[in-house]
């Protein structure tokens, strides 16, 4: 506990705390759309796909955010082009592309001196070294993403639940898809300096999944997800100060703890009258 009190006096730690809460609540809210559209595999793929972009940007000394976003969008295009022939299923193509782009990132990083330190920072983040500029970027990007998502909320939800209906009403479903994919990619890239590429997955999926355990309604789900994301940031960062473990890992693990606790509490208290997710094809669904 004394470690924690000491840490709180350091401006670096307070800055990290602010960044963790911001990232956690933004990613938590965006994550609701990820779970709604069943995009978790896309998020995992994106976490690997943005990595070479971030690595190359760091080697060239340009903005990590721009590099990661370009690489992420390039991978989206690659998956769409390779998927057009329909010989391979999307999951296999994403698997091939994500492993390949990750290997490319490793090659770029390992070609430079001091590589293992940089590599660690990309993979698990280094939230204690965030700068005021990083925080400003988080606020601007996060604010824009949340603004776009809330402006298009009705259309996005319609598109997620009833694609055919949305198309019949004159919306273009692929535009709505693209909005969500871009929002997820941008949020992911913003989170990389703080929690790293691999652990951003946790913030973009687990808080939303946790919130789904508590309520079936969309508005409360987003509020709870933002809360869980922010809380995980505080808990993880505090744990990392007390036990001196990696902050990014501790934050991601905190989201998992929130999920397990929620699962235990809700299985005991909340009655289960309604299925919480759309029914899936029992045989094929679990394997997909």
């Amino acid at each position, binding site marked *: 506990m004394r470690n924690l009190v000491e840490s709180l006096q350091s401006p670096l730690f307070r800055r990290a705390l602010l960044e963790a809460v911001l990232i956690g609540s933004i990613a938590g809210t965006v994550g609701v759309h990820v779970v709604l559209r069943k995009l*978790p595999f896309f998020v995992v793929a994106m976490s690997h796909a943005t990595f070479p972009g971030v690595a190359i940007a760091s080697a060239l000394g340009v903005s990590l955010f721009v590099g990661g976003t370009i690489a992420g969008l390039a991978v989206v295009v690659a998956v769409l082009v390779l998927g057009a*022939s329909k010989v391979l299923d999307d*999951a*296999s193509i994403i698997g*091939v592309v994500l492993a390949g782009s*990750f290997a490319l990132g490793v090659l770029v990083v390992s070609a430079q001196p001091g*590589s293992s330190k940089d590599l660690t920072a990309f993979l698990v983040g280094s939230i204690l070294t965030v700068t005021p500029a990083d925080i400003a970027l988080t606020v601007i990007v996060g604010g824009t993403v949340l603004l776009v998502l809330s402006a298009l909320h009705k259309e996005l939800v319609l598109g997620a639940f009833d694609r055919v209906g949305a198309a019949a009403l004159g919306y273009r479903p692929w535009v709505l898809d693209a909005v969500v994919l871009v929002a997820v990619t941008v949020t992911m890239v913003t989170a990389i300096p703080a929690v790293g590429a691999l*652990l951003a997955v946790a913030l973009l999926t687990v808080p939303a999944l946790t919130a789904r355990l508590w309520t079936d309604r969309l508005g409360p789900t987003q509020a709870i997800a933002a809360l869980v994301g922010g809380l995980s940031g505080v808990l993880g960062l505090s744990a990392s100060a007390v036990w001196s473990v990696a902050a990014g890992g501790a934050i991601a693990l905190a989201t*998992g703890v929130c999920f397990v606790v929620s699962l235990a509490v809700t299985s005991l208290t909340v009655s289960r009258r309604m299925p919480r997710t759309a029914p899936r094809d029992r*045989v094929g669904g679990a394997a997909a």
Partner: protein
Amino acid sequence: MWDLLVEPFSTDYMRRALVELVLLGVLGGVVGVYVLLRRLAFITEVVQHAVFPGIAVAFVVGQSLLAGALASGALAVALLAVGSRRRQIDADALMALLIATFFAFGVVVVSRGTGFQSDLTALLFGRILSVDQRELIDTAVVAVVCLLVLAALHKELVLRAFDPIGAEAAGYPIAALDLVLNLVVMLTIVAAVRALGTVLVVAFVVTPAATARLLVRRIGPMMVVAVAFAGLCGWLGLVVSYQGSVHHGWRLASGATVVMCLTVGFVLVAAGRAVVHVVRSRPVAAPSREPRPAAARP
């Protein structure tokens, strides 16, 4: 030219690395075809992250990495089996949750030790060049066991992949078949993880089979092509990383170079196939057999 391709293997450690990659190529190529048929690429990704905390704990307490990887991999497969029975939890979301939390736990464990950064790098990206005799034997044993199991259950696994309802109606235990295949995938990952590391190992399972599928349509030939492709890329990758590092000072990490060879090979085959497709200008694509899962659609 021949010297260029053979010269790197004059030393023992390079020969051992090549043997390890060929063994993993045989195993990964064959298992990958089943993964492709069943669309299990995401589960493979889950398992490769799930073995990480086991390896991390084993590394910190100085126990066998293989045992640690087996334990945490088995735990993840069990949680997946239990969790996907509950309708309230979406299977894809559960997998993302397992990936994130297992991986985070591993990172936290490794970060407790000294030398965090270099340890993490070694565990994540493997040390193919420091494979020893015992690890080769371990890999060979795992490969033989997995291939025997797959050979014995081949007919049932293929039936279950193409016609799950028919297989269930014919009285085959679907859940048991799924569990066996998941365990085989896990063993493959565990065998490959020390050499290739926890984030690159998925390439050895998914990429060769996907490349083979672009070239042939029958399952037997697909396995042969996948194995040959994996072995070839393992050899080329080692040659490139050796020649680059020794003669040109490029510092190419061997594991990542091998995976890059696999990916470049896949892209070349896909491009070649597209060209042939345009030239012949008649449909050669097989109709997709079932609606594609929404989650995998970006």
